[in-house]
C-alpha cells in the first residue's frame, strides 16, 4: 500500500515551550490512525502541523510522495510558499472541534464554496457534488438550512461533508466530537466510521477510546511531544507496554458500565 503521509523528525516550539519533539509518523492509503494523549501532549498541534495551520519549526512532511517546502541552509528547517501550502490544504481535509461552519452560507453553500472557488466548478456541478457528500453523512435534508438552525452533531457532519467535497487524499479530525453533547457524539462517530470503511485515509485525534478500538488500524500514544507507544488498537489499548499509557487508559476507563443486557 502506498504512503499518503510521512512526517519526519517534526519539531514545534511555541516560544520556550517545546511542544513537538521529533515526531515520526507514516500513514498508508486507506489507513485510519488514531492519536491519543493527555491534553498538552501535542496531539492537536501535530495534526495542525500536518496541514500547516501551525508552521513546524523543523522536520519534513511528505504528502502523497511529494515533499512539502524546500530545504534551507539550516539543517531540518524548511521554507514554504503560500501557494504551495494553499494547494496542500486543498488536498488534506480538516474537521475542527468547533465545527467552524460559515454562518452566512446555507449548508449546501458551505459545501459548495470550496469546489466553486478553488476548483472552478460551476454552481450546478458544485451543488451536485455537495448533495452527494451531504448524503454521505446523512444530512442532505438540511441542504437549504443555515448552520445556526442545526444541532452540533448535524453541524459537524456538514463540516465533514465540506471537507470531503474537496475530494481530499486524507482527512484530519481534531477532536471532532469533544464539543458535542453526549447524545450527539454517536452520529458523528458513525459518519467517521463509515468514511473509514469506505477506505478514506484518516488521522484522528480523539478521546473516544471505543472509536479507536473499533475503527483504527493503528493507535499512537503521544506523551510530552513524542511518540510514546504505538501499535494496533488491541496492543495499545488492551496490553499497553508503558507506564504513562497505562495511566492514561486507567483514567479514561475508571467508571464503566457493564454491557447492556449482559447481566451483572
Amino acid at each position, binding site marked *: 500500500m502506498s504512503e499518503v503521509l510521512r512526517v519526519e523528525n517534526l519539531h514545534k516550539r511555541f516560544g520556550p515551550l517545546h511542544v513537538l519533539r521529533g515526531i515520526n509518523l507514516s500513514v498508508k492509503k486507506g489507513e485510519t490512525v488514531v492519536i491519543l494523549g493527555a491534553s498538552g501532549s501535542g496531539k492537536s498541534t501535530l495534526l495542525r502541523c500536518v496541514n500547516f495551520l501551525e508552521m513546524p519549526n523543523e522536520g519534513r512532511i511528505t504528502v502523497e510522495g511529494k515533499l512539502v517546502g524546500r530545504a534551507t541552509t539550516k539543517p531540518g528547517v524548511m521554507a514554504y510558499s503560500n*501557494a504551495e501550502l494553499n494547494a496542500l490544504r486543498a488536498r488534506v481535509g480538516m474537521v*475542527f472541534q468547533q465545527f467552524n461552519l460559515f454562518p452566512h452560507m446555507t449548508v449546501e453553500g458551505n459545501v459548495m*464554496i470550496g469546489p466553486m472557488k*478553488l476548483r472552478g466548478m460551476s454552481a450546478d456541478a458544485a451543488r451536485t457534488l455537495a448533495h452527494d457528500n451531504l448524503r454521505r453523512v446523512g444530512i442532505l435534508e438540511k441542504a437549504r438550512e443555515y448552520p*445556526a438552525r442545526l444541532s452540533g452533531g448535524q453541524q459537524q457532519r456538514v463540516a465533514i461533508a465540506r471537507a470531503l467535497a474537496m475530494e481530499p487524499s486524507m482527512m484530519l479530525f481534531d477532536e471532532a466530537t469533544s464539543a458535542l453533547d453526549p447524545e450527539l457524539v454517536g452520529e458523528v462517530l458513525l459518519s467517521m466510521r463509515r468514511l473509514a470503511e469506505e477506505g478514506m485515509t484518516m488521522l484522528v485525534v480523539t478521546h473516544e477510546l471505543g472509536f479507536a478500538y473499533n475503527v483504527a488500524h493503528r493507535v499512537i500514544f503521544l506523551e510530552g511531544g513524542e511518540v510514546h507507544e504505538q501499535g494496533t488498537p488491541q496492543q495499545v489499548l488492551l496490553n499497553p507496554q508503558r507506564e504513562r499509557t497505562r495511566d492514561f487508559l486507567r483514567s479514561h476507563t475508571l467508571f464503566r458500565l457493564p454491557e447492556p443486557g449482559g447481566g451483572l
Partner: protein
Amino acid sequence: MDHEWDFAFLLDQRDFILRGLMATLRLAAACVAAGIVLGLVFASARLSRSAAMRFIGTAYVEFFRNIPVLVQIFWCYFALPILTGMQPDAFVAASVAISLYAGAYLAEIFRSGIQSIEKGQWEAARAIGFGHVALMRWVVLPQAVRHVIPPLTNQVMEIVKTTTVASTIAYGELLYSAKVLSDQEFRPIESYTAVGAFFIVLLTLVSLLSSFLERRLRRHV
C-alpha cells in the same frame, strides 16, 4: 421673550436653500465614499503581515484622528496654498480634510470588524485551501460587514454633520446658506432651526437605511 416665528421667507428662498442642501449632500457623499475607501486601505495596512505596512496604517490613524477637523480644513484651505502656490476651492479643501479625518475613524471600525471574526472561521477557510484574498472575500468580509454596520452608521452620521464645518471656508452648504439668509432677513432663529430640521430628516433617513441593511444581513445569523 415674545419672538414671532415666521418661516415664510424660507419658502421664498427655497432655490437658495435647495442649493445649500445639494451642496451638503455632495460634500457628504464625497467624504463618505472617500472615507470608506481610505478606511479599507488603512485597515488592511494595519492588519498586514508586513511591519512597515502596519506602521503606515497606525501612523495614518494616529495623525488624522488627533488633529481637530477644523484645523485640517484651515490647513488645506489657508496653509497649503502658501506652501504649494495652488489654491484648492472650498469643496476640494473640505472634502480632502473631512475624508482624511473620517478615514482614520473608519479604518479603526473596519479593523475591529475584521478582527471580530473568530479564529475558527479563518482556520476553516484556510483548511479548505483558500488564500488570503479568497478567505477575505468569501468568509471574513461578508461576516464583518454585519458587525460593522452599527458603528459605521454612527460614523457616517458624524461625517454628514461634520460637513457643516465647511461653512467656515465659505463653502455654500446648508449652514452657510442659513447664515447668509439669517443676515439678509434678520431671522437667525428660524434659519438655524431650519438647518437643524434638515439634518434631522437627512440623518433619520440614514439610520432607517442602516436598520434596513442590518435586518437584511442578519436574517440567518
